[in-house]
């Protein structure tokens, strides 16, 4: 019974496919998988928006959306209707074609990223050998679309935003890649499915998630930072810093295209947290051996939503960086630290089993990270903060 629950969607697909002639079944299966992805993740997107607006509201001592539906949970639907019914304005001397292609390309690419994420046991659309590489290829392609958007709308805010975004994404792609390379190195495979399976084992009922190893933990921290920057989220949200450049690269977009960009952003968030979950948090594997009976996809999605919540929390907490701080942080702190982590992982690999490697590796990492952090923060003073909570 529980197996059935676990494999629910697979069974469903096979059942539907069963109606078709044999020749078409493979293709139909793929199509169904695509449909599933395209159906599920935008739904999550809707939930996320509500979550974010409410949560931020609480953090910023506001109520947040509360008009549409009970507690305003129907807000996303209202938003959708609004953006769909709005007039679609294209600036007069904008580069119409590119201006149109940009959001489409973005959304397409982002969706393609999901194709390789194992959302559950046997639940991956394309199980290819180099799936991680594929994922990053897709991620890299988003930059082009962002540039297209910014450049094509002939607006200095958009262009500046695009430039910032692209520069930032390129800079943070390096640590993102490196911190995942650590995992790849330790697993010995680029295939996300294999990576998850490698983590889906238990000693004393505790899982072998990579985050529970020194190098994995360090890599996860770096990955989280880089991912936040990669998705242009606060505190790295300069590209759409409202106070400086109106809305960044999609200032000139309106209506449905704007919605697409919005969608693209949040899908990017979802997919990158999905990847993080897959790489470090054991993907769809249960946190305790005892909890294996819970369907795997539930675990995956709850982990993803959890990291989303963390992202929202961070956004509500941290102030925005300056451009130069951003770049310095990327190249002078995150990158070296990931490199160090790479070496430490190698060390771990060669120290062999036993407690020694735990001590050594964590010692190195803690010492260096703390020291580097202190060095970086020298001379910067933060006064005490005062909070006032909503009654």
């Amino acid at each position: 019974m529980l197996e059935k629950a676990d494999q629910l969607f697979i069974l469903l697909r096979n059942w539907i496919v069963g109606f078709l002639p044999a020749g078409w079944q493979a293709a139909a299966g793929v199509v169904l998988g695509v449909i599933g992805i395209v159906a599920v993740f935008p739904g999550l997107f809707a939930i996320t928006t509500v979550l974010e607006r409410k949560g931020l509201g609480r953090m910023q001592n506001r109520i947040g959306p509360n008009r549409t539906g009970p507690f305003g949970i129907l807000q996303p639907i209202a938003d959708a209707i609004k953006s769909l019914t709005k007039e679609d304005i294209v600036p007069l001397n904008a580069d119409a074609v590119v201006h149109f292609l940009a959001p489409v390309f973005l959304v397409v690419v982002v969706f393609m990223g999901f194709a390789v994420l194992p959302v559950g046991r046997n639940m991956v659309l394309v199980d290819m050998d180099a799936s991680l590489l594929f994922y990053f290829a897709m991620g890299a392609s988003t930059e082009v679309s962002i540039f297209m958007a910014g450049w094509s709308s002939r607006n200095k805010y958009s262009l500046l935003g695009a430039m910032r975004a692209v520069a930032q994404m390129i800079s943070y792609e390096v640590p993102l890649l490196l911190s995942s390379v650590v995992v790849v190195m330790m697993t010995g495979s680029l295939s996300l499915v294999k990576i998850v399976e490698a983590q889906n084992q238990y000693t004393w009922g505790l899982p072998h998630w990579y985050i529970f190893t020194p190098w994995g933990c360090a890599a996860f921290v770096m990955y989280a930072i880089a991912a936040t920057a990669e998705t242009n989220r606060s505190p790295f949200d300069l590209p759409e810093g409202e106070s400086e450049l109106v809305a960044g690269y999609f200032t000139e977009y309106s209506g449905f295209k704007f919605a697409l960009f919005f969608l693209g952003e949040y899908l990017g968030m979802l997919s990158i947290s999905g990847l993080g979950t897959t790489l470090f948090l054991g993907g769809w594997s249960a946190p305790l051996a005892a909890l294996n009976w819970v369907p795997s996809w539930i675990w995956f999605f709850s982990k993803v939503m959890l990291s989303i919540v963390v992202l929202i929390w961070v956004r509500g907490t941290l102030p925005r960086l300056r451009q130069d701080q951003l770049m310095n942080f990327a190249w002078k702190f995150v990158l070296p630290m990931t490199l160090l982590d790479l070496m430490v992982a190698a060390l771990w690999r060669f120290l062999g089993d036993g407690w020694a490697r735990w001590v050594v590796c964590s010692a190195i990492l803690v010492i260096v990270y703390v020291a580097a952090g202190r060095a970086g923060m020298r001379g910067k003073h933060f006064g005490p903060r005062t909070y006032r909570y909503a009654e």
Partner: protein
Amino acid sequence: MSFVFWLLAAITVAGGLAAVLLKNLVHCALALTVVFAGLALLFLQLDAQFAGFAQILVYVGAVAILVVFAILLTRSSETPKDGGVFSRTWGAGLAISAAVFAVLGWVVLQSEAGLPREINVPNVTVLQIGNALMGRYVLPLEIVALLLTAALIGAVIVAMHEKGDAK
């Protein structure tokens, strides 16, 4: 020799033509990305997954962006006032490249008889590639790494502002 191949080939070639013919350099760059993507797909079609994804990652993700940056930094996106975008001696250039294509095509067709006909199926995994890189080709790998480092530093230094140079 499937339909897919012809489609991809058409896309790629069209992108290439666009890349060299369009007036606006940014459009050229975007067309170039199309070419890259098309090539990557061709690679995939040749079962060269790794190369294909690397192609996308490196070219679409990095080189195209780099080109775009260069275009914007050098303000070459707006078409020059005087004359067209083609150099004075474009005729000669065209003739020569035509000659090159002629020769190459002629060569290919000439040697077609000697080419292998059947595909031998490679079941090549990323693991094998990794082993090859770390084993047989480790020295070239190191050299390439050195080259990339040198290129990185060189590019930074070349593009750096000299002191007193207005930004």
